[in-house]
């Protein structure tokens, strides 16, 4: 039996990681100690009537923020995207199929009810019920069954081996609710804050949970969470002092925020990307030479410099970012090479061909990427017609439905997840419709492998295959930019999303 927490990363490293993060963000943990108190207002990007208090239904950044404030998970992410112990004190497995989970003692829900194994069994298994409307049903379908083995112990059985379980369980949808809870008009969690007011599409107000199970935490007295969809308004609200933290600052606004002596920007390198999708089922875009030609035609440096003002990481046409532990550094970076492109296009006999490209603000900055591509394509005798379509309805009507479209993939916590959701031949979101028998076999093999080094090697080969044969052009990974008031301390990036992977509420404190 292996306790993944004690072999992988101990709790001491977790604390060490946090301290390192504090130091890196220039807070100087040594000189100032976190203190309790302060009220802040935080603005995220989107709120709608679909806002929810049900973690399973969480769909937008505002939902994730709210849910991490109110609920706790079995595990939680650290700055390196590892699953660290949270409500689960111990997770032990021999084969990565049957997992024995022991819960922390003395944890209480906001209404005073103690946390038991029954709550966890219910919280995990409800995702499989279609009536729950869970966003992670596809992932939860691998939970064959969960069984209570003691008041604070349970056994979770999977359909097949999955060593990433501790990371998966840290996702916002898997946060723990009480047993039998179906009505989410009120929230009752074990998290750092208690929900004081919730109006969908308008605001959420949470107050400090004085009985939180992490001693001393959280620090803030009250947080008001609102959404300001318009980027300029959001940055203005930050600079005028109406809100103390915002996410999704556009690279163009960074200068403005940095010019203020009272505000700062936190860059979170993430594996978010906007990709050019070349469909296999079309004679032109399905031609391997054409696909390769397009990949060589991507001016990654220019995209990084001009569209993102440097707040991006060059990508290599596969979805694993350089800062990911499973990144394969041996794959040579594909350069911008129009001559190679022209040669490949000629070889495919496709010179002078005319193709429409669908771009939309829905896939962030695809409009600009499309224009850059169009310029370069014209020089090698390929005529791309840019069809700009509105965000509304883009995903249901255009995405993946034409030979050339753009997609946008959010960061996923594990290589397995991004590969299974977007690259496995049977995946619903296999954007290009490609298939590689070897790739699919390796994906399954990696899950059954317990040795981290061996898994890394397998993922390395999979990156090769996607880089070489995949139907996606992935130019850069996009950094996430948060703006914050300098009096807000204790921030460090967690690559899963802005706002410290949406979990900032339990870490930050107000220095005033």
């Amino acid at each position, binding site marked *: 039996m292996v306790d993944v927490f004690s072999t992988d990363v101990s709790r001491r490293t977790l604390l060490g990681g946090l301290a390192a993060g504090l130091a890196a963000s220039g807070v100087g943990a040594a000189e100032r100690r976190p203190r309790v108190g302060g009220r802040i*207002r935080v*603005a995220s990007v989107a709120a*709608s*009537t*679909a*806002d*929810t208090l049900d973690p399973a239904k969480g*769909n937008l950044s505002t939902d994730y923020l709210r849910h991490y404030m109110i609920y706790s998970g079995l595990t939680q992410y650290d700055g390196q995207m590892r699953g660290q112990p949270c409500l689960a004190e111990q997770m032990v497995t021999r084969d990565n199929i049957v997992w024995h989970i022991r819960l922390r003692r003395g944890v209480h829900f906001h209404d005073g009810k103690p946390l038991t194994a029954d709550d966890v069994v219910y919280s995990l298994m409800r995702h499989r019920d*279609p009536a729950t*409307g869970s*966003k992670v*049903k*596809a992932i939860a379908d691998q939970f064959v069954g969960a069984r209570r083995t003691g008041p604070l112990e349970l056994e979770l059985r999977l359909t097949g081996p999955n060593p990433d379980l501790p990371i998966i369980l840290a996702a916002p949808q898997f946060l723990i609710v009480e047993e039998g809870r179906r009505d*989410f*008009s009120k929230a009752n969690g074990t998290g750092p804050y208690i929900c004081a007011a919730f*109006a*969908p*599409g*308008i*605001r959420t107000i949470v107050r400090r949970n004085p009985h939180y199970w992490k001693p001393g935490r959280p620090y803030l007295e009250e947080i008001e969470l*609102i*959404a*300001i*969809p*318009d980027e*300029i*308004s959001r940055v*203005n*609200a930050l*600079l*005028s*002092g*109406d*809100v103390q933290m915002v996410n999704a600052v556009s690279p163009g606004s960074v200068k403005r925020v940095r010019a203020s002596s009272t505000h700062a920007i936190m860059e979170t390198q993430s594996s978010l990307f906007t990709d050019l999708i070349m469909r296999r089922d079309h004679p032109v875009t399905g031609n391997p030479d054409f696909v390769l030609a397009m990949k060589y035609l991507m001016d990654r440096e220019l995209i990084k410099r001009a569209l993102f003002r440097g707040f991006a990481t060059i990508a290599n046409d596969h979805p694993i970012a350089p800062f990911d532990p499973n990144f394969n550094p041996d794959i040579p970076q594909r350069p911008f090479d129009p001559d190679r492109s022209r040669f490949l296009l000629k070889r495919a006999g496709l010179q002078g061909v005319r193709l429409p490209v669908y771009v939309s603000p829905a896939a962030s900055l695809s409009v600009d990427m499309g224009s850059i591509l169009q310029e370069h394509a014209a020089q090698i005798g390929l005529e791309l017609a840019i069809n700009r379509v509105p965000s*509304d*309805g883009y*995903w*249901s*009507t255009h*995405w993946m439905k034409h030979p050339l479209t753009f997609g946008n993939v959010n960061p996923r916590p594990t290589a397995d997840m991004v590969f299974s*959701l977007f690259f496995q031949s049977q995946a*619903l*979101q296999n954007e290009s419709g490609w298939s590689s028998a070897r790739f699919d076999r390796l994906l399954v093999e990696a899950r059954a492998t317990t040795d981290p080094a061996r898994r890394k090697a397998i993922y390395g080969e999979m990156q090769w295959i996607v880089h070489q044969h995949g139907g996606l052009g992935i130019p850069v990974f996009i950094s996430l930019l948060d703006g914050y008031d300098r009096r807000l301390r204790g921030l460090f990036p967690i690559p899963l999303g802005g706002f410290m992977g949406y979990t900032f509420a339990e870490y930050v404190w107000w220095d005033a």
Partner: protein
Amino acid sequence: MSAATTPSIWRGAVRLIAQRIGLAFVTLLLVSAVIFTLSSLLPGDAAQEVLGRGASPEQVAALRHQMGLDRPAPVRYVEWLFGIATGNPGHSLVANEPVAEIISERLPNTLTLAALTTLVAVPCAFLIGIASAVAQGRKLDRLLNILTLSMVALPEFLVATIAVLILAVKLQWLPSITLVPKDPTFGQFVRAYAMPVIVLGVGVIAQLGRMIRAAIIAELGRPYVEMARLKGVKSMRMVFRHVLPNAIGPIVNAMALSLSYLFGGAIVVETIFSYPGLASLMVNAVTTRDMPLLQACAMIFCATYLLLVLIADTVAILANPRLRQR
């Protein structure tokens, strides 16, 4: 006006007004049908929007069935129509709440903003309109003309952005977003609403001011004004006693148009100031394909518009003896 003709005057007016009300209901019905048809032409539906990109066709079909979206459109329309006729606008497909509840949270916001803007804008517009009409052709008139024309020409988002940059970010006098605390003090209330009211007011004042000016100038050229002038009536008294009552028909109509704009057209202001009103709720309903909510919003906007026009028409009819007697 003789005593014998008085009842027939009012009967004529009442018949006209009743006709207008009847027509308003027909219009509402037609609008609801048009909205229903148009919105069903939008790509995707609520089930797809709720589940997002990664959903399997089976999941979408199941949710569609649960939402009742798999039933034929005419059936859904008739059902909705019966619901709204009995005062029940239905249940939101996306939020787990009745539509009436969602709207009841936003409607007061929209009403407050519209009322405050009206309160500020209408007196200003009258002042500008009358001053400029009386001073027609003179320096003051030209100055006001330039001012109002440039106010009309400035797009709202530009006014809002500049106002925020100066008043909120640079000077920090006013908040850049409109957040009204629960049970606000008078000071908090004024501070919170100042910015959106200014921005919305700019357009309304300019439009309305110009309309009032035009209506008054049209009257000022009439023979009765000449007569009054010859009899020595002072200019202010003439405008208020003689000209305004005659110009009120077109002015009230212009006001109705401006005010109905405050209701549904505040979307830019709602977005920039992140103010939870009805217009942004409706946009939200469109993007999530939440038909019951969308329909309800559309009905409210349409009904308000019709109501305001009806009031304007009524005032015009009552103020005009010729229409009154028809």
